[in-house]
């Protein structure tokens, strides 16, 4: 038996750290979603699918800009010294994933805006007719379209992976200390973005394509979650204690019921039926996938903050 009694009682630190509330999980979810949307729209551009009528390529970059700005706003809300936010852009710290992320976010905007110009939504061109002029220049040159496509795919991958590296670099929190976390967040981002396209696209081919793609991503995500659990269970005692927080500890109910069952397994089942034409395409599965993606970030961020090198002495 070991019992630790501490006189420390710092706000947000004791009895266990809870420094990041809803803002960070929401940002990680939106960042992953936008990363997935960038990769998907990059793919649509590269394969010339954007020329098809009703292609969602017109909406994806616009949604991306709005959702990413929303995500950055939640990041801003999380800062405790808000007026000093500009300090992040006065330096580049090569060892700090957060520094990498803040600069990637700045690079993502021009790529999204260039993407938006390829097939700008009608309400924008009506209001700003000059957009059509730039749009025709870009569309007239295949090289520019391909460059924009590759920029969106590579920055999307960078953004998706970074959201996982941000957490996995904190070795003080054993639950986050996994090399598959960046991959998990990237695939989850691709899955939620596919679900969004499946839900909002007016093009039937696109809907079917992204329902199929989402099924593949959900399958991959389930496999990566399994790898994550196996990796933790076969690691140090601190990691084993940490993974039990979500396997059968305080976060287990949310993880198994809302993330795995309702967020992955059931939508996979529903989408498989709709792909096989047994049932029609509805918004049910995509909404479940999106909610599951959000809750995955909540579980990982909250349980990760709870996890500690000394956890066994706290909970025994």
């Amino acid at each position, binding site marked *: 038996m070991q019992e630790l009694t501490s006189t420390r009682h*710092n706000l947000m630190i004791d009895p266990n750290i809870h420094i990041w509330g809803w803002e960070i999980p929401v940002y990680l979810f939106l960042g992953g979603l936008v990363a997935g949307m960038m990769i998907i729209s990059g793919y649509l551009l590269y394969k010339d699918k954007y020329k098809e009528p009703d292609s969602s390529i017109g909406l994806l970059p616009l949604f991306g800009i709005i959702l990413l700005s929303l995500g950055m706003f939640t990041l801003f809300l999380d800062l405790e010294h808000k007026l000093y936010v500009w*300090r992040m852009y006065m*330096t580049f710290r090569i*060892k700090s*994933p*957060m520094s990498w992320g803040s600069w990637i976010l700045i690079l993502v905007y021009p790529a999204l805006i260039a993407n938006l110009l390829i097939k700008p939504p009608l309400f924008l061109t009506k209001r700003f007719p000059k957009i059509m002029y730039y749009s025709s220049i870009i569309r007239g040159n295949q090289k520019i379209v391909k460059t924009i496509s590759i920029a969106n795919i590579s920055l999307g991958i960078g953004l998706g992976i970074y959201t996982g590296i941000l957490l996995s670099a904190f070795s003080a929190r054993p639950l986050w200390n996994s090399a598959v976390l960046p991959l998990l967040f990237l695939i989850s981002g691709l899955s939620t973005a596919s679900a969004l396209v499946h839900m909002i696209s007016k093009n039937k081919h696109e809907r079917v394509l992204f329902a199929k793609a989402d099924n593949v991503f959900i399958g991959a995500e389930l496999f990566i979650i399994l790898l994550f659990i196996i990796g933790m269970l076969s690691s140090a005692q601190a990691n084993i204690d940490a993974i039990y927080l979500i396997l059968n500890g305080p976060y287990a109910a949310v993880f198994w019921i809302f993330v795995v069952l309702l967020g992955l397994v059931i939508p996979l089942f529903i989408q498989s039926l709709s792909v096989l034409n047994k049932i029609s395409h509805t918004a049910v599965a995509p909404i479940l996938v999106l909610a599951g993606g959000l809750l995955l970030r909540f579980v990982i961020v909250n349980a990760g903050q709870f996890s500690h090198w000394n956890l066994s002495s706290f909970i025994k």
Partner: protein
Amino acid sequence: MARFGMVIDTVKCVGCMDCVVACKTENNVPEGYNRDWIVQDVRGDYPTLNMEIRTERCNHCDEPPCVSCCPCGASHIHDLGGVVLVDHDKCSGCKACIAACPYDARFIHPDGYADKCTFCIHRVEQGLQPACVSVCPTHCMYFGDLDDPNSEVRKLLASRKNYSLMPEAGTKPQIFYLE
């Protein structure tokens, strides 16, 4: 180059919290927060229990993850003695350093920046001891240069059995506890 560190004799520490009060007074630590604190560590099975009392604070690690993760460059290693400090005017309050610290030694000051023990560097630069060390009534705390083989801290570490907190976290802590 000096490498400041601390040696704490757990046999002498009685947990009087004088170090805690001295730190709060010296550094104007806001109410409800602590830069240093007392831990009672009880091990064994009743009735053969073993209790150790120790004073804890930032370990001023040699490989401080709080410094490497900081996106603003606010967390830094001071030129004198490798002391880990926070530049308040650079800190955006992102809390990455708090997540990175395995000792949970940092907190957010009510003014919005990350705060923690400074080894009283403002006193040390004047040739004084950190406030906590200077007031300890049982003289259980020793502060000095770990790089100097003739320093009291090095001699204590050479002569007494000692340990550091959570060396498995890989941060190379510079506070040592004598058993």
